[in-house]
């Protein structure tokens, strides 16, 4: 009796449809497209800011299109999903041992969320939103 193992191929472009957890992973990865595109917008914004007050006013005006609003919604969703998955992951990468036990992962991730909220509120405050 000889060995003749059977190889089962993995479909390289559709493997992530096999289970919801892979779709969630792909959704997390895809956020980089929208975040990256938004960063490109930021670079454009810097160019306009450097070009003077008329150019900057033109940039702000250009933001007011329907396309821009849709893009911002997508970018915001992507940024939020990235932030949530990132903060949840931090507890895995930085275990904190105190004595014999470990600080619960939720505390580590929770601390990140708290800092994030405080930071965001501070930035909104200094930007004159409230």
């Amino acid at each position: 009796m000889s060995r003749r193992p059977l190889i089962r191929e993995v479909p390289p472009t559709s493997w992530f449809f096999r289970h919801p957890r892979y779709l969630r992973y792909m959704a997390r990865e895809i956020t980089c497209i929208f975040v990256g595109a938004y960063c490109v917008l930021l670079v454009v914004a810097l160019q306009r800011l450097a070009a003077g007050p008329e150019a900057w006013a033109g940039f702000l005006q250009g933001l007011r299109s329907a396309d821009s609003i849709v893009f911002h919604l997508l970018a915001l969703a992507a940024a939020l999903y990235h932030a949530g998955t990132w903060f949840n992951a931090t507890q895995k990468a930085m275990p904190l041992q105190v004595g014999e036990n470990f600080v619960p992962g939720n505390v580590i991730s929770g601390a990140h969320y708290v800092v994030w909220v405080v930071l965001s509120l501070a930035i909104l405050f200094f930007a004159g939103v409230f």
Partner: protein
Amino acid sequence: MAKSHKPVVWFPFAAGGTVIAFFIPVIVVLTFMAALGHVPAGLSYEKLHAFASCGLGKLAIFGVVALSLWSSAHRLRCTCYDFGLRADTLAATVLYLAAIAGSVAAAAFLLRI
């Protein structure tokens, strides 16, 4: 096989991912408000120009933009592979160069302010 130089691209990816998580959502909210017609005071030319004029402001803006671009580029490179695109070296070259180009442009614009 020899040890990999992956940390060169991974470490900035991790730093950038952290920066994106902490800063990008609120910045999106600010420009979103502008898109809806309510430009926050901080996004007026005078205020923003003043912020970007000082060294610390330039550093902060550059740090956020450059690291976020790099992190997005690295993640997109890995995603291309996950989507079955086997030309990893090509994807890496194109995407990292794009991130560097964007960062260089951001630096150039910031230095004009």
